[in-house]
């Protein structure tokens, strides 16, 4: 295999190659057919996949996720039946309650995984995609993309949604508890996150170009 020479003087090899992250094998890039997945011949890891949803599709997904997130936070997540009257509580109601009741550690973990990290992540993705739609790199593109890469595995909203289901069933042993609309909005958010997991946002590096000042 011969090496492409263009761009070498800048320390940059052109994007004609894939390097498998899992075993370091080098492959020549090729154009993928619709829905096709390129796999490493040595270790079988995914090198790249073709996406039906383009940048616009991704932006639409992020916007949908944001709407679901807002509703998940506005609407109560559960209704409790206590002594004959019903009490509804939102996510933040729960978080504040836990803080006041000396469960600060759990309260902070909940607030981070369910509120701050998702909002931060959606904001960054939305910002980057808004510009990427026109093939441009947003101001702060580099920082945003590096940050997104670093926080990747630490967003756990889908785990939380399943956790809520288990918690509600468990709580049902002690008193009346009914899941509310808020938790279903989070369910939608969970589905979108799962859809996003298959998209490699690093493609945006190849799809956009540095703006010439």
């Amino acid at each position, binding site marked *: 295999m011969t090496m492409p020479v263009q761009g070498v003087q800048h320390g940059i090899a052109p994007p004609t190659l894939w390097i498998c992250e899992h075993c370091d094998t080098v492959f020549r890039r090729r154009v993928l057919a619709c829905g096709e997945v390129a796999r490493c011949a040595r270790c079988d890891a995914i090198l790249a996949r073709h996406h039906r949803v383009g940048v616009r599709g991704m932006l639409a997904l992020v916007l949908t996720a944001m709407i679901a997130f807002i509703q998940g936070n506005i609407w109560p997540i559960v209704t409790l039946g206590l002594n004959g009257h019903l009490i509804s509580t939102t996510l933040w109601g729960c978080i504040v309650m836990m803080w006041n009741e000396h469960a600060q550690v759990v309260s902070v973990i909940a607030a981070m995984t369910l509120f701050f990290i998702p909002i931060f992540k959606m904001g960054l993705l939305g910002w980057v995609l808004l510009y990427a739609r026109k093939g441009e790199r947003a101001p702060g593109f580099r920082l945003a993309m590096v940050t997104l890469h670093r926080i990747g595995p630490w967003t756990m909203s889908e785990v939380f949604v399943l956790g809520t289901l288990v*918690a509600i069933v468990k709580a049902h042993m002690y008193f009346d508890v009914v899941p509310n609309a808020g938790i279903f909005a989070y369910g939608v958010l969970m589905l979108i996150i799962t859809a996003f997991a298959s998209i490699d946002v690093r493609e945006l590096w190849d799809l956009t170009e540095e703006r010439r000042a």
Partner: protein
Amino acid sequence: MSGLPRAGDLGLIGCHVCGMVCRDVPGHDVGCPRCGSALHNRKAASYTRCWALLIAAFFFYIPANVLPIMRTVSVGDVDDNTILSGVIELWVKGSPDLAVIVFTASIVVPVLKFFALGLLLISSQRGSGWARRQRAKLYRLVEFIGYWSMLDVFVVALLTALVQFGFFSQVEPLPGVVFFGLTVVITMLASMTFDPRLIWDGRDFDD
């Protein structure tokens, strides 16, 4: 198989952060020209760090299972639950499906992660050529399922919140859940510090 060129042989480094293919400059710590991240042929001190984190996680996992994770107080009745007794309670009180989910996420997955990472570390350190493709798949599996173990932490958190609204019954988290959360986070860090490329770096490269 040996016909496939590896980045190290061609003097290339792939950037993990942006996927760019860069030229390696031997003896220099180069940054990726596109995203500015540091480039490494292999993750630094992968074996040492991964072993250290794995052992630390294992030490946290013991109190996570022995200590109760949650206390429920009903009328004059105090009940402390460990992870395992919580699973049993779910099973007995009529949700065997959820009991299986929680059991898998809280007990099966962490234990399998300890074994899987230990196996990957030992076999790679020995440069073993045994079942490389399967080991590569095992690593990807460990990476993928790791954070689902957080499930029990969330369950306790939410139950606490839910029941705070009750006047006669109470649920509070106990130290076990903190140890469990730490176990999950540290095993996630351990699987991140392991460099899967080491699986393929053995002495007998032809398979």
